[in-house]
């Protein structure tokens, strides 16, 4: 039941009124994802560098702030280090720069999409996108519902894990990791059961 900072990763939407916030979802998606595909296809480091720098500019211009832009890339630090080392040795600096810069640019650009679109809109977009699946017998509305359920379950799961850690600490016992994780998974299945019942009770069969 408790929030930690890790839960926020799914609610990354930042309210605002910039052009990115206001433009229709389909347009935004086509432009941003098109840029990603282009970067991956061209594979030249100056292009990647330009795109990367542009993502910073757009981020600042849309009121998202440079600090948030940097923070979204920090988890990649370790990976970037490994990639630079390997490609410097194996393939030379140009290739290293291209690999790293295109990775960073693409991550930064996709992040622009989810920080400027509220989650419900994003899910509506996914539902529209899934319309062709109707022919395969998949109901797009159900896909949207599943995504919402998944996102609302993540903070709950973090809470369960930290609760069990506390319980073990409070008893000053050291159960093996398996002993500790088993109750968490069982609680998870129980939670899924209750969620299923709530869905049924609310007529969302």
């Amino acid at each position, binding site marked *: 039941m408790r929030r930690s900072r890790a839960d926020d990763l799914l609610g990354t939407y930042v309210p605002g009124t910039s052009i990115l916030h206001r433009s229709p979802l389909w347009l935004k998606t086509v432009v941003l994802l098109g840029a990603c595909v282009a970067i991956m296809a061209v594979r030249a480091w100056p292009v990647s560098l330009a795109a990367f720098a542009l993502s910073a500019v757009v981020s600042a211009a849309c009121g998202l702030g440079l600090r948030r832009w940097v923070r979204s890339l920090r988890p990649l630090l*370790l*990976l970037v280090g490994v990639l630079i080392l390997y490609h410097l040795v194996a393939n030379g600096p140009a290739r290293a720069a291209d690999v790293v810069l295109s990775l960073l640019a693409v991550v930064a650009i996709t992040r622009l999409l*989810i920080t400027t679109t509220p989650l419900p809109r994003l899910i509506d977009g996914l539902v529209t996108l899934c319309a062709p699946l109707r022919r395969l017998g998949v109901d797009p509305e159900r896909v949207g519902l599943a995504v919402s359920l998944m996102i609302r379950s993540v903070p709950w799961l973090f809470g369960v894990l930290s609760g069990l850690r506390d319980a073990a600490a409070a008893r000053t016992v050291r159960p093996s990791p398996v002993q500790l994780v088993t109750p968490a998974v069982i609680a*998870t*299945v129980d939670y*899924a059961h209750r969620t299923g019942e709530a869905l*049924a009770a609310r007529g969302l069969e």
Partner: protein
Amino acid sequence: MTAPARDTRTVTSFDLANIAVFAALTCVLALAPAIPVGALGVPITLQTLGVYLTGMILGSRRGFAALALYVIVGLLGVPVFAGFVGGPAVLGGPSVGYLLSFPFAAALVGALAHRSVRAERVRRRAGSTSAAPERRGGLVITLFGAALAGLVLSHVMGIVGMMLTAGLSLRAALLTDLAFVPGDLVKALVAALIAVAVHRAFPRMAGAVL
């Protein structure tokens, strides 16, 4: 009894909730610190623990759906892949083979695991004298075997993925992949131990008792 009756054609609300919650479980496991290893920086993660657990507990159909949901949400840009990454960029990255293998591995593990859970139960019904045969280790071993099948599938797809996206030779890709094997074996065993306890607590997860 409390679970709404299962219909094999459609996704019931009970199935939907399980799919969503296990996709979320895989997210949470993926967000535990990942350790990049090898030349390409594909990390050691707990995602495969999520894949094996989901398969063993939900079975093939729901297991596939749960992991497909996870991969789709990640591809859409929500940062749920290893190291808080998200977006279609991973399709061109070295871990693409592993990621795309997840739904299929879960389905494979699920098919094998649920079959052995049901067989175990039939054996018990048929007059086994032991009070709780599921505790005696037999099921742990068969579930571990099911996870091994999933392990092989995801590693094969992972190797192919590294060869295609990073241009590695088969040899180099195999060597890179080898670094993940010990960890994944441990995760498979852990998943089997946990899944046995779960099936003990929720006997209906593997479908009607025959």
